[in-house]
């Protein structure tokens, strides 16, 4: 039995694995200190499985502040974990685009999903999940509805600001001018996809390309991103769990070497 915990900026994810199968998983809102949060992840997993003892199994923690968790056995990078997690679902994965709340990370792996290179943006909010959340809120729609946008016939209204904060006021202006909501959404998706695509191109994507992280549930965005890259993108089930799943897989120590442990 192994446990993988992924501490994100928005959500904490944990996956318990036994014999290469997921036996329990949790996702909850991050709150409070990192070290308490990681322990809470274990307690929540334990609550799902009566009869499991108090001591956690072999545990790998990835994500924000993972170095502050003394009790785990490994602290692999998010990139290694997402590659390993993506490989669990899509054997042929070579490139992973992790679309998270506070960052975009593009990793390239070898055929065994060992990390070969990566490019990341974790300093700037442009194109991140928090930005999309802010826009959805401004437009008064749910994040899910945002992703269900039908794109084919809707021309985007271009978004000229790169900065998420400037883009917010640009969108306020568009709303005031009476630009239809669908056109604004199209414009935002184009802008975000363009931003992600430039990062992906910087690593030189190799197929197969897999998108992970909570934002990859946005089907419309993935569709626009495919068009920008000219490559099909696969999205595993529950893509937001890939980091935790990868951590649990790496903890089982089967084939992938671990960074930082």
């Amino acid at each position, binding site marked *: 039995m192994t446990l993988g915990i992924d501490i994100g*900026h928005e959500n904490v994810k944990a996956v318990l694995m036994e014999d290469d199968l997921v036996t329990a998983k949790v996702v909850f809102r991050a709150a409070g200190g990192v070290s308490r949060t990681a322990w809470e992840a274990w307690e929540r997993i334990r609550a799902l499985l009566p009869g499991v003892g108090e001591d956690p199994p072999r545990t790998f923690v990835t994500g924000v502040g993972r170095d502050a968790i003394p009790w785990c056995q490994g602290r692999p990078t998010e990139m290694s974990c997402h590659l390993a997690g993506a490989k669990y679902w899509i054997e042929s994965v070579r490139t992973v685009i992790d679309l998270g709340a*506070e960052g975009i990370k593009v990793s390239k792996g070898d055929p065994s999903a060992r990390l070969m290179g990566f490019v990341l943006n974790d*300093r*700037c*909010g442009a194109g*991140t999940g*928090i*930005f999309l959340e*802010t826009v959805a809120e401004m437009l008064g729609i749910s994040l899910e509805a945002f992703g269900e946008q039908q794109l084919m016939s809707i021309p985007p209204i271009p978004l000229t600001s*790169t*900065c*998420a*904060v*400037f883009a917010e*006021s640009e969108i306020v*202006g568009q709303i005031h001018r009476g630009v239809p909501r669908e056109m604004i959404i199209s414009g935002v998706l184009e802008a975000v996809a363009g931003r992600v695509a430039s990062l992906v191109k910087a690593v030189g994507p190799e197929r197969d390309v897999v998108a992970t992280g909570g934002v990859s549930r946005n089907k419309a965005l993935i569709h626009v991103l495919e068009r920008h890259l000219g490559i099909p993108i696969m999205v595993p089930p529950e893509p937001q769990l890939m980091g935790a799943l990868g951590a649990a897989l790496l903890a089982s120590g089967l084939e992938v070497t671990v960074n930082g442990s």
Partner: protein
Amino acid sequence: MAHELVCGVDVGSLTSEAVLLKGDEIVSYSIVRTTHDSGESAKAALEKALALGGIPEKEISFVVATGYGRVIVPFAQKNVSEISCHAKGAHFIFPSARTVLDMGGQDCKAIRCDATGRLASFVMNDKCAAGTGRAIEVIASLLGVPLEEVGAISQRFTGEVPRISNVCVLFAKSEILSLMREGAPVEGLLLALCQAVADRASVLLKRVEVEKDLVITGGIAKNSGVVRAIGEKLGIDPLIPPEPQIIGALGAALFARELLSRRARSSHLASTQ
């Protein structure tokens, strides 16, 4: 001829200013909110300055427009970039100025000028909200503090300054909220904000190789917290004009004065030929 009334108008992203200049004297000036219409905003600034000075519009001999909305000011005879205008305006107030930091609502510019106030080089950030007035606006409203009071309130704080690790304003918002939940005092967070903005400005200043004297212009020059933090970071005491928001418009008015006297000289030359 040298004492004709000239006007400079600066149409910025948040505010528009007009300066009426006669010889070396600022006869009147105004600051108004910029609306979606640059031309209208410029007009409103001009009319307010005229009204405040009790001056009829027909007395103005020449108008130069500057600022991001400068190209759509219908009554201006010429437009000049705000970078040249800030250098010229700051140098007029402080002849010792060699570096000008213009901190506006949506951008930040570090400008180097020569001993005559002429633009030598500059770097600017207009792509990212961090280090601009927008960052202060966003965080001040998050903390429920009026924008104008951010500097003064931040200076009341004496304890250990909370650390804001994010540069991005979007991320800093959630970081500041969680710092608040952990009990960080508002004064301390405002001081951290002022220091963060000063950090971004210092990066630009170092890239133009800051030289004394340093003049800070634009709306943020009124924020004592940011000004002090920049001074401490660079080991330079910045000079602040009495009304830092009108320096672009003042520079434009100075260009208007120059252009007018050049025109007068050439027409004088033509008539004597």
